[in-house]
Structure formats: structure tokens, C-alpha cells
């Protein structure tokens, strides 16, 4: 079996369709939309006309994210030999990752059942593999920060958002399932935080590199400000649950700031590209 499997080689059946970040970035509508709609964001809520459909799409994203989290944790069990060296992973870490695989597999099953409940078929929406891509770092500590702190941290935010959606709509099944999965994700982040401290206790440079890598991934996972603390953020940063998972207040503040940066950069890019497009159209006329 290969080590360090690239996302292109992940096994999927014919129901799944991939969509890349690049394809979405190249969508000309991103800049052609009317100015008042271009940078519009809306919190996920049943009051939105498209609220239940938006929740269905997010639930499908959670489902594919759970598959990738399973694959990411599973690869950590396999990709590194057992040991304490820089390219190795301690046996106890692999045991934790194996336990996480079991949790993620259960989450996949729960997500499929929630999809059925919400009226979504497997493969109804495209899959993006950017979560797994963050789980491919060749340094086990950096991979751990990518998967267990950034990816699973995003999972905390998303599950909490879905849990709040369920509370507002009164959906007992969704609320119950999200609550249980959220508890698992808090444990996964806590495992990541604990292992990061243990493995880098005598190596401050490695810890700094890992935290820097986490920042990069956290900014990527802010999805242009879709995850953040602003009133209109579709996915809310779940401070309380992040604290329970071992994030310090200043670390959460930093993620909030990265999200805001990501939002500003995307908005600015769109405005710039729209202005360029308008200028080109005026030139043609």
C-alpha cells in the first residue's frame, strides 16, 4: 500500500463527483454578480427561504468531510513508522488515530442517515477534497495540526452551526446527532493539542513550524470568511467548544482574525476583478 496518498487517488464510487477550488475560483459569476449580491453572506437559518436546502448541502459537505477525516487519520496510522524521530509517530499516537478512525467511520454512517432524513442522496452535491489535502504533510506533527486542530476545529464550528440550526427549526434528530458528533470532535481536537505539546516539548522550532502551518490551514478553512465571528458568517466560530477542546483564548482570537483577513481578501479580490471586467467591457464598447 502506498504511503502519502494524494487526494486524486482517494477511492470513491461512481456516485461521487469532485470539484476543485480552482474551478470555483475560475467561475466568472463570482465577479459578474451585481455589486449588492457579490459579497453577500447569510447565517444558516431556517428563516432563510433556502435555509433547509442550504442545510442539506452543508450536511453533504459534512459527510464528505467525515470521509476525508477518516482517510486523514487512517493515513497517519499507516504513513509513518513507529518511533520518536522526526519522520516517525509514537505507537500511542497511532492508537489515538485508530480510535479517531472509528469515530469518523461512525460519523460517516450518521451523516448518511441524516442525509436520508433531510432528503439528500449521496453524491447529490460535488465533493471538494481540500480537507484531505491539508492532511498530507510529510511531518507527522504538522499533519496532526492540519487534521486534529485545523480540520477538526472547523468540524467543531460546523457541527455547532448545524446544532443551532436544528434548535431553531426544532429538528430533534439533527440536533441530537450533531451534539454527539460535536462531543467527539472536541475530543479529537484535544488529542491534537495534547500530542502537539508532547511531540514538540523539546523542539520549539518544530512547534513554531507546526503552529505556522496550522495558521495557513486555518486561513484556508475560513473559506473566504464563510467561517467567522461576523453577524453574517454562515458558519460561526464556536468559541466555547474550542475552549473545551484545549484552544487558548488568544488562539481563538487569532483564528477569528485570520477569518476576517480571509473575508477581506476575498471581497477585495472580487471588487478588483469586477472593476477590471467592467473596464474591459467599457473598452470593448
Amino acid at each position, binding site marked *: 500500500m502506498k504511503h502519502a496518498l494524494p487526494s486524486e487517488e482517494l477511492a470513491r464510487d461512481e456516485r461521487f463527483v469532485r470539484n476543485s477550488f480552482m474551478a470555483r475560483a475560475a467561475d466568472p459569476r463570482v465577479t459578474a454578480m451585481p455589486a449588492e449580491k457579490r459579497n453577500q453572506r447569510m447565517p444558516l437559518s431556517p428563516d432563510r427561504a433556502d435555509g433547509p436546502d442550504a442545510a442539506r448541502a452543508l450536511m453533504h459537505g459534512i459527510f464528505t468531510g467525515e470521509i476525508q477525516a477518516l482517510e486523514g487519520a487512517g493515513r497517519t496510522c499507516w504513513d509513518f513508522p513507529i518511533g520518536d524521530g522526526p519522520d516517525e509517530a509514537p505507537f500511542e499516537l497511532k492508537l489515538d488515530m485508530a480510535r479517531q478512525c472509528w469515530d469518523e467511520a461512525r460519523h460517516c454512517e450518521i451523516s448518511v442517515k441524516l442525509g436520508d432524513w433531510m*432528503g439528500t442522496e449521496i453524491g447529490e452535491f460535488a465533493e471538494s477534497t481540500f480537507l484531505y489535502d491539508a492532511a498530507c504533510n510529510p511531518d507527522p506533527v504538522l499533519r496532526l495540526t492540519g487534521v486534529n486542530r485545523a480540520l477538526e476545529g472547523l468540524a467543531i464550528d460546523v457541527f455547532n452551526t448545524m446544532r443551532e440550526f436544528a434548535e431553531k427549526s426544532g429538528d430533534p434528530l439533527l440536533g441530537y446527532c450533531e451534539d454527539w458528533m460535536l462531543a467527539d470532535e472536541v475530543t479529537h481536537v484535544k488529542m491534537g493539542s495534547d500530542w502537539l505539546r508532547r511531540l514538540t516539548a523539546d523542539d520549539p522550532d518544530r512547534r513554531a513550524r507546526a503552529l505556522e502551518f496550522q495558521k495557513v490551514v486555518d486561513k484556508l478553512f475560513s473559506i473566504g470568511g464563510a467561517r467567522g465571528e461576523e453577524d453574517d458568517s454562515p458558519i460561526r466560530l464556536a468559541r466555547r467548544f474550542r475552549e473545551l477542546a484545549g484552544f487558548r483564548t488568544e488562539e481563538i482570537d487569532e483564528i477569528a482574525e485570520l477569518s476576517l483577513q480571509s473575508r477581506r481578501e476575498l471581497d477585495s479580490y472580487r471588487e478588483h476583478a469586477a472593476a477590471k471586467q467592467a473596464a474591459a467591457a467599457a473598452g470593448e464598447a
Partner: protein
Amino acid sequence: MAASVSPESFTMVLFDQPAIVAEVERIAALVGVPSGEEVRVVVDEAVPVARAHLASVDPLVLEVEGGAFEDPRHPRQLSEAAVADTVGRLLLQALDRRSAAFGEVPADVDIPLAHRVAWDVYAVGRLQRLGLDGQRQRRIYGFRNRHGFTDVADEAFARLWDGTDLTWADITRLSDDALAARTG
């Protein structure tokens, strides 16, 4: 039956205008738009959101944001199923509005979300019986979100979904009864 779809060629999405025209004509005939009557569909291809509304009942004019016709698995590509679902629902509601027996319907902007969703269920249930995929579970989930996860709401949904010859008063009563059970 004639349909016109604008724009005639799309530059931002990979939609085939003749394919949309053909699907609109097929659906219009299926739901019972009188032969010889034109259906006009105006697509705003710049907006990847799935909103659509009936701009005019007579003549029949539908205004659609591009996302409503888009395949959720293949961005920018046309989904004929989405065209059928959106156009079929709006045309059935246009025919409802024209029917004296259906009763007076408020302007779209004055219809509360719960009533709007209940009317959508009634329309899509009819489309399902005409052979289209109505995505029943998706619809009941949307209905429960607005009317409560209760037995009363599910019973109201079933009566809307299976309903024939319902009136606007029937639809709003079923919706209001479900809402009352949610809050009561």
C-alpha cells in the same frame, strides 16, 4: 406551445438555450398550459443562486436566477431536472392563480414563508404524479422546518402532497393548523 428563453446564448454558464426551450415546452404541455400560449423565461446567468419567481401570469413570464437551473454536482452546467422542477412548480402556481375556483392569492411578496412552502408542496406533489422526481423527502424536510416536526405537520404535508383541487384557503388552513400545533 411555444417557449422563449433569454438570453439566447450564455457566456458565464454552460447552458444550452435550445435544451432549456425544449424542456420548458415539454413541462408546459405536461402541466396543462393551453396550447398556443407562449411561456417566456428570463434567466439571470450572473447569479449562482437558486431563486425563481413568476413575474407575470398573463402573459406567462418566469424570472430565474441561474443557480435554479444549475447541476449542484457540476457547477455552471445545466440540469434538465432542475429546469423541470423550477418551471413546473411556477407554471402550476400560475395556473392556480388564473383559476377562479382556486381563489384569490396575495401578491408573492405578501405571502408568508410557511404558506409559500405549503403551496410549493402542493405544486411539487402534482409534478410527481405527472412523472417528475419531486424529491418527497427533501420537500417534507423543508415543510417540517417551517411547520414543526410534529404529526400534525406530517399529516398536513401528506394532504398537500397528495392533494387535488385544493384551494388557496385549503392550503393556508393546512399550513396554519400545522403552525398552531408547533407552537401550541
